């Protein structure tokens, strides 16, 4: 319905000459795009039509680029756009073929045949999850606060979850460069002072101040979801949800042998099913855990462009790395330079205060860890929630 409406509006629009058959083609293409999962608003379609009108609408290359500029607004959508374009304009028996031949000359058809999709696609930001066949078994045993998550019945897990939903994972704050009015502060609020002095016949009777605002640091969870760790990691995910309520920026990644960003998945799904999906995508059961390599991917694809800058990175893993310890040492050092603090949750630490890491991975990573906690039961997660805001 929407597209019909925009089509008629466009015809009435004074900027654009009446080329009704083309409008229908373009609007039809927008519909095709929506079908391909690209968000296209009616306003965008209008701009698209105007844009093609300023160009040469019989030139398919123009039609392509006009659409790229007006209908696509994120690099992630470019692939979808290309596919839809190919389907709609270039495929044999394509929806638009009839109208196009009606309007366009033979020369144009020749060009359409020779039309090469430009290869400027940016690297896609997220690895698509390929469904792998594997089972997901929740462990079952039982107890409360001090019982390890790996040893709870589903009913008790549900109870724990209710308690956890009330815990708040609040990262520490940092001062921003933005200021706000304050009763006292370092810098005077000249604007307010002057405005106020107008009332006093130009006498600056009172001095007002501004103070720098503070803001929650971003929180990045990097969770090991390989077999032995999955039970612990999924409880941290619960935390990720509550942390978002605290208006903090939260990013969540999972790894086994590969790294997957699941922040977007978490927006729509329950944490459990998101984690399950992620685990299916990232874990290759025979491969074991590759912490070094996964963190390296994290730094290259996300950390380098500033995702964890000034943030707190929480890594939940037992440190059983199958990869090269040299690589893990290098990436941990790099990560510690990129982010503000690194918290490592190792469930094997348990309640032992004199825990010394024994796995090679943990030993290599230890010098760069600011806070090592266990995270194996509710009490230790409470401890994490309590320590996190104080990480300064």
């Amino acid at each position, binding site marked *: 319905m929407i597209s019909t409406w925009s089509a008629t509006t466009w015809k009435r629009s004074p900027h654009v000459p009446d080329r009704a058959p083309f409008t229908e083609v373009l609007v039809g293409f927008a519909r095709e795009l929506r079908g391909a999962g690209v968000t296209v608003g009616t306003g965008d379609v209008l701009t698209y039509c105007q844009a093609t009108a*300023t160009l040469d609408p019989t030139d398919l290359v123009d039609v392509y680029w006009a659409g790229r500029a007006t209908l696509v607004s994120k690099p992630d959508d470019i692939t979808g756009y290309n596919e839809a374009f190919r389907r709609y304009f270039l495929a044999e028996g394509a929806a638009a073929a009839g109208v196009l031949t009606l309007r366009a000359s033979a020369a144009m058809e020749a060009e359409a045949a020779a039309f090469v999709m430009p290869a400027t696609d940016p690297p896609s930001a997220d690895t698509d999850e390929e469904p792998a066949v594997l089972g997901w078994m929740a462990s079952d045993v039982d107890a409360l606060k001090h019982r390890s998550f790996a040893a709870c019945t589903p009913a008790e897990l549900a109870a724990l979850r209710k308690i956890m939903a009330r815990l708040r994972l609040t990262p520490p704050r940092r001062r921003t460069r*933005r200021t706000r009015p304050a009763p006292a502060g370092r810098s005077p609020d000249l604007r307010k002072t002057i405005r106020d002095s107008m009332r006093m016949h130009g006498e600056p009777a009172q001095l007002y101040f501004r103070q720098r605002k503070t803001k929650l640091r971003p929180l990045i969870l990097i969770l090991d979801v390989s077999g032995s760790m999955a039970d612990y990691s999924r409880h941290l995910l619960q935390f990720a949800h509550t942390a978002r309520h605290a208006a903090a920026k939260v990013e969540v990644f999972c790894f086994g042998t590969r790294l997957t960003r699941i922040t977007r998945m978490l927006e729509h799904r329950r944490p459990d099913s998101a984690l399950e999906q992620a685990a299916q995508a990232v874990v290759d059961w025979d491969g074991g855990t590759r912490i070094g390599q996964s963190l390296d991917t994290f730094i290259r694809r996300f950390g380098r462009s500033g995702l964890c800058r000034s943030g707190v990175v929480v890594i939940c893993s037992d440190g059983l790395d199958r990869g090269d310890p040299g690589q893990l040492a290098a990436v941990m050092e790099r990560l510690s330079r990129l982010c503000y603090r690194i918290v490592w949750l190792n469930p094997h630490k348990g309640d032992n205060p004199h825990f010394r890491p024994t796995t090679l991975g943990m030993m290599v990573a230890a010098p760069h860890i600011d806070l090592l906690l266990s995270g194996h039961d509710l009490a230790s997660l409470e401890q994490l929630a309590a320590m996190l805001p104080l990480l300064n």
Partner: protein
Amino acid sequence: MEYPTTVSDLTRHLREGGYLADRGLATALVVSLSLRRPVLLEGEVGVGKTEVAKVLASVFGRRLIRLQCYEGIDTNQALYEWDYARQMLQIRALSEHQVTDEQAVDRLFGPKLLLERPLLEAVRAGDEAVLLIDEIDRADDEFEAFLLEVLSDFQISIPEVGTIKADTAPAVILTSNRTRELHDALRRRCLYHWIGYPSQEREVEIVLVREPGAAEQLTRKVVGAVHRLRELDLAKPPGVAETIDWVRTLGFLGETDLTAESAGDTLGAVIKDRDDLDLVRDNLEEITSRA
């Protein structure tokens, strides 16, 4: 000079200004200039996002107004600010009798005491200017939200003065390095174009246009080596700007060929990260010989 209305004209003009725009970029710019919509350019570092605005301004005789974004940028730095010190002095200088005078107060908030910042300057200049909002991803969410208003209407309200509106909106180019995701609302108000790395032949062409003195043989070798570098798993892959720098550096040193030795001496022009340097030094022979 009026902006051209066809893609080929614009491409030609930009080329005369020393900028090779591909079909996609040129189309986005033509549409943006004729519909007066801002265009958002994203892409890897050093592929010429900022440069295109500079060239656009110089070729068509417009004034380039640049707003460099940074965290915490606010209206005082982006829009306008009153010259508070002068205001204060002027108030002190007025006698009691004059304060009640309308004109004295008007002068206090007159154009003389209004400090124009880039956005206000651009709205005033209208079509005379090209507004470059550089590295918008560095600004924070609050500023982005504020920018929405300016970009959609091109009008600015100053409480003491009134509303200032552009007769014709200036050409606006926003650039982002994707260090964070921009809000959809901002994206929707802009045309969008992703600038990728150019192909090998095209990059040679670009370098020769920017650096007319460069030897073609050497340029080809350097571009080949840079393309090889981009295939390596580097933390900071070199952009086109680095290629140009490298050719320039080699030319300055009087090198006529890219050998493992000359490349090793000038590697600082392309590789800007220590880990990358180690990786590249180990493969230098292969990189320069294959090129």
